[in-house]
């Protein structure tokens, strides 16, 4: 009878686990909706600022800002955005793998990499690799604000200005839809040159007070908004991935319970049969 008892307690524990995963799935679903709303709400800003940057690239500014000039790469900077918590499928793993291969390509050429990490998972991962960690932000929560990110972005921008790094990359998860999140590496600095097509006549902005100051402020905000957008997007990705992972965990728990139930019934039946045959044999002996 010990066997049936064991199976019964196992079923109980799997049922409890299923309850937890189901609750987590529902929490993730409602959080995902909110995160998606925030993501869509903040998209106009980053789209607008990208458009202005596009105009800027098409204009013929007299002053070429440092952020727009490419130079020889001797050292690169990476901003890696991950979630703080796990239990969200392979979301963080895929992202970290991608960033590692991307960094490896530089390291093979003897170029060193400086890291700036957002999210607990990234910090935990790169800590083990003895990476050059120069700034980090953890536990940003579900509603990030730009203030949380100004510091780490400025660390990187200052390093870029001081020519300590010559190129700045951003690694984050792109929210395609609920089922699909795509890890991505994009270059933030220097700005990718936009192919100049239609506006080939000469024009430039009026800068107030002067080009250098305005452009610095502008490009700083551009980088910040890109990082902010990636953080917001990453949160939506995290919740979506968690929802899917917890859904499959709940389903798996269900089928596992079914299997255990079958095994339990068989064991119980076997025990009854054995007992009966023992009784019959006992009766025969008498």
């Amino acid at each position, binding site marked *: 009878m010990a066997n049936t008892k064991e199976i019964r307690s196992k079923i109980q524990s799997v049922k409890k686990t299923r309850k937890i995963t189901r609750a987590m799935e529902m929490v993730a679903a409602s959080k995902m909706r909110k995160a998606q709303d925030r993501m869509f709400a903040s998209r106009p*800003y980053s789209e607008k600022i990208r458009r202005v940057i596009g105009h800027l690239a098409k204009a013929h500014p007299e002053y070429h800002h440092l952020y727009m000039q490419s130079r020889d790469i001797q050292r690169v900077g990476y901003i890696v955005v991950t979630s703080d918590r796990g239990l969200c499928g392979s979301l963080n793993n895929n992202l970290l793998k991608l960033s590692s291969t991307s960094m490896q390509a530089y390291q093979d050429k003897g170029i060193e990499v400086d890291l700036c990490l957002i999210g607990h998972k990234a910090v935990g991962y790169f800590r083990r690799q003895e990476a050059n960690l120069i*700034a*980090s932000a953890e536990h940003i929560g579900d509603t990030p604000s*730009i203030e949380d990110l*100004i*510091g780490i972005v400025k660390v990187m921008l200052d390093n870029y200005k001081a020519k300590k790094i010559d190129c700045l990359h951003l690694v984050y998860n792109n929210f395609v839809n609920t089922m699909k999140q795509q890890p991505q590496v994009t270059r933030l600095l220097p700005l990718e040159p936009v192919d100049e097509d239609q506006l080939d006549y000469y024009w430039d*902005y009026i800068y107030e007070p002067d080009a250098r100051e305005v452009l610095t402020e*502008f490009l700083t905000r551009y980088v910040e908004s890109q990082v*902010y957008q990636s953080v917001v997007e990453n949160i939506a990705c995290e919740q979506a991935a968690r929802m899917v992972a917890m859904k499959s965990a709940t389903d798996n728990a269900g089928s596992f319970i079914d299997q255990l139930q079958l095994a339990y019934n068989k064991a119980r039946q076997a025990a009854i049969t054995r007992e009966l045959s023992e009784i019959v044999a006992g009766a025969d002996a008498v």
Partner: protein
Amino acid sequence: MDKLSKDKIGITIVSAEKELFSGDADMVFVTGREGELGIAPKHSPLLTGLKPGEVRVQNDGQEEVFYISGGMLEIQPYVVTVLADTALRAHDIDEAAVLEAKERAEKALAEASADLDYYRVTTELAQAVAQIRAVRRLRKQFG
């Protein structure tokens, strides 16, 4: 219709967290870094910072007012984009944020060694416990 015959100017006001306004206007007033700006259609391209203050959008005799705590302004002949800040910006605040971010990184690295210590301590503890157990067993046998 030719774009140049338009007599309105499109205006979008966005902050990093949401879009505040999007529509057409006859005239837009903002407080630029260098003073008040009145923007009518066919304004020449301009890029400037904004002081904390109001953005007034006039359209068909109606006026809408938005308050922003600073930001950036881009003017194209028929499009005005106001990129409003949500965060308070000041040089010393930014510097403080930089220090904080660096400290966090250092702390994360320091915790790594703390973790290692933790593992070493737990293994030592396990060894000690095993030794005590062995001693007790010996005592029971021979004591």
